[in-house]
């Protein structure tokens, strides 16, 4: 059973029950009051008639006439005749003996104060009371028909049933409209939930109510937003992962294909000296490329498994070891490397930092044109040591900067491969920064240049705080 159906049924039942019970109680009270009034009226009329008879008898007595049954009968009849017109029947009893009666079928004298007679067909008020002394051996019975009261009550009952028949359908319709209106936000929420569950994560509840439903809708939207955010994040991560796997496959398969193909070519083809040289040259260069890739991958893997050994590293030493590795490349490319050191040393792993700088400088060499320079800066900023490599080369677009740290991402495929790059340099740099708990900044603007900066500890901060 639906919620609105339950609500409708329960409210309807409760309402009708309450209404009917109260109406019935009111009707019962009114019946009681009416009845009391009738009895009151009957008893006062009886008293009046009894008093009249008493006075009548007194005056007869004062005229010296004895009061016998005939006199009593006369008196009673004269009153009875008069009151019959008003629908009142009288009986006179003398010590239990009937003296006069309107009706022929009267048997025993009723009990002294019988207030109302209720049998199936006749409804009447009957009051029997003795006359004042000295006639207290005489009893006057007063009977009045109250059929009209019962008819009125029956009419009232019928009317009550009619009203029930008319009011209930109206109530049902009004309740239906009201409840459907009230549960509308629920249906809206339910539909939206269904849509979101169906994968439409951008869906929101459009509910502007200022009540609990509005609050629910707001919270619900907040939840949907969080879910959407996470789902987008997850799919972006899955995409990035897929890209990395694709790229790794590409990076491994391409040199392997060349090596295998050229080896086969050398082995089985009918070729001259020139082709032999080309083929073996490719096998050589592709082997180097694969070696480079494997070592970079190994570096990355070792980095994430080995703790770094931090010492105080002299900036000049660092510069010299970078220079030793790169001066051939720099000379070939016709690029100057300039050192600008404002601090003497930084706190870190010597080899890792050298590797970091070599990777950055190699990238810079590839990006720079002949005759330009690369600056290696070391300075203090907010009590951290900053190592910075700045070039004035081609730079990268914002989108390229965003992807730059992803493994195997290359800004320029063809050129980078010529240099034997594996596309892992910046991934390695990021890993090194993470191992040092250092922050890494990459700023770049196309045709202006690129700056990469790592914020390291100046000294061993742990020692200072201890």
């Amino acid at each position, binding site marked *: 059973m639906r919620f609105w159906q339950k609500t409708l049924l329960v409210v309807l039942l409760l309402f009708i029950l309450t209404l009917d019970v109260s109406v019935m109680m009111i009707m019962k009270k009114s019946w009681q009051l009416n009845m009391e009034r009738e009895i009151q009226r009957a008893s006062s009329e009886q008293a009046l008639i009894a008093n009249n008879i008493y006075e009548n008898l007194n005056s007869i007595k004062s005229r010296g006439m004895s009061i016998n049954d005939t006199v009593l009968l006369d008196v009673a009849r004269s009153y009875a005749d008069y009151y019959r017109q008003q629908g009142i029947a009288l009986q006179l009893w003398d010590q239990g003996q009937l003296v006069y009666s309107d009706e022929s079928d009267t048997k025993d004298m009723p009990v002294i104060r019988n207030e109302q007679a209720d049998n199936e067909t006749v409804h009447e008020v009957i009051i029997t009371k003795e006359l004042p002394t000295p006639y207290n051996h005489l009893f006057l019975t007063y009977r009045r028909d109250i059929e009209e009261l019962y008819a009125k009550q029956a009419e009232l009952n019928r009317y009550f049933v009619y009203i029930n028949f008319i009011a209930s359908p109206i109530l049902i319709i009004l309740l239906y409209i009201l409840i459907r209106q009230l549960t509308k936000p629920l249906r809206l929420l339910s539909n939206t939930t269904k849509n979101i569950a169906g994968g439409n994560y951008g869906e929101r509840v459009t509910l502007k109510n200022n009540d609990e439903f509005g609050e629910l809708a707001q919270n619900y939207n907040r939840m949907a937003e969080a879910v959407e955010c996470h789902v987008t994040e997850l799919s972006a991560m899955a995409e990035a992962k897929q890209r990395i796997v*694709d790229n790794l*496959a*590409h990076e*491994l*398969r*391409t*040199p*392997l*294909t*060349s090596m*295998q*193909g*050229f080896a*086969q*070519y050398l*082995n*089985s*083809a*009918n*070729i001259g000296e020139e*082709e032999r040289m*080309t*083929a073996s040259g*490719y096998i050589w*260069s*592709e082997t180097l490329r694969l070696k480079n890739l494997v070592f970079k991958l190994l570096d990355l893997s070792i980095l994430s498994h080995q703790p770094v050994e931090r010492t105080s590293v002299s900036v000049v030493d660092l510069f010299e070891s970078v220079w030793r590795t790169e001066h051939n490349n720099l000379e070939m490319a016709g690029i100057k490397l300039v050192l600008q050191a404002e601090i003497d040393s930084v706190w870190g792993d010597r080899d890792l930092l050298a590797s970091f700088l070599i990777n950055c400088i190699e990238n810079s060499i590839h990006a720079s044109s002949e005759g330009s320079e690369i600056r290696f800066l070391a300075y203090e900023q907010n009590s951290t040591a900053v190592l910075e490599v700045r070039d004035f080369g081609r730079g990268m677009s914002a989108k390229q900067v965003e992807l730059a740290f992803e493994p195997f991402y290359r800004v*320029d*495929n*063809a050129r980078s*491969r010529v240099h034997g790059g594996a596309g892992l340099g910046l991934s390695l740099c990021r890993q090194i920064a993470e191992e040092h708990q250092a922050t890494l900044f990459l700023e770049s603007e196309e045709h202006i240049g690129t700056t990469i900066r790592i914020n390291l500890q100046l000294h061993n901060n742990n020692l200072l705080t201890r």
Partner: protein
Amino acid sequence: MANILVVEDEKPISDLITMNLKLVGHQFFKAFNGMEMQVILEQEKVDLILLDVMLPGLDGFELMRRNRHLNVPVIFITAKDSLYDRITGFELGADDYIIKPFEILELLARINVVLRRNVQEHDGFIAEGVDVRLAARKIYKDGQLVDLTAREFELLEVLIQNRNIALSRDKLLELAWGYEFEGDTRTVDVHIRQLRKKLGWEERIKTICKLGYRLESEG
């Protein structure tokens, strides 16, 4: 033989493919990206495109989409071997899909299949007075029709299509006899001997030590 356009941004792979195409007597064009590919397609008559999927700029799928109207058969060469990529490739109308690393013989075999399917005229091969007409399956030596068995002809066809490349006896069995054939590799020797005798190609079909046989030609 056929004009083949090789679109591949990796110079080693591009050279590997074209050097082998040259060996078996195909003409080739090299393109290292989509733009170069478009230029060549406009200027030259191309029978087949070997198309790398991961190219700088527009990728192979997109290039395929743009050149579908030319009705030039395409073989994708790629390192991406997910089912989704393969299906995308075939849905775009590729004739074949080769995954790196591939074997050169496999590549040549697939190229031949696609060419046979798409190019109506079959090429011939002429050397030392022997005229081999592959389409008609007829061989003339000094104007005289040479009688070859069906198996000998298959073997000759394989040797011609992979000329200048040494083929092992196993490979020859596989290519000329089919995968199911469970014969001795000496069967190959017998048939090669027959071919040499019938065509007078004692020197042309060379025995390569420890490898197999190679049909040699100058161009």
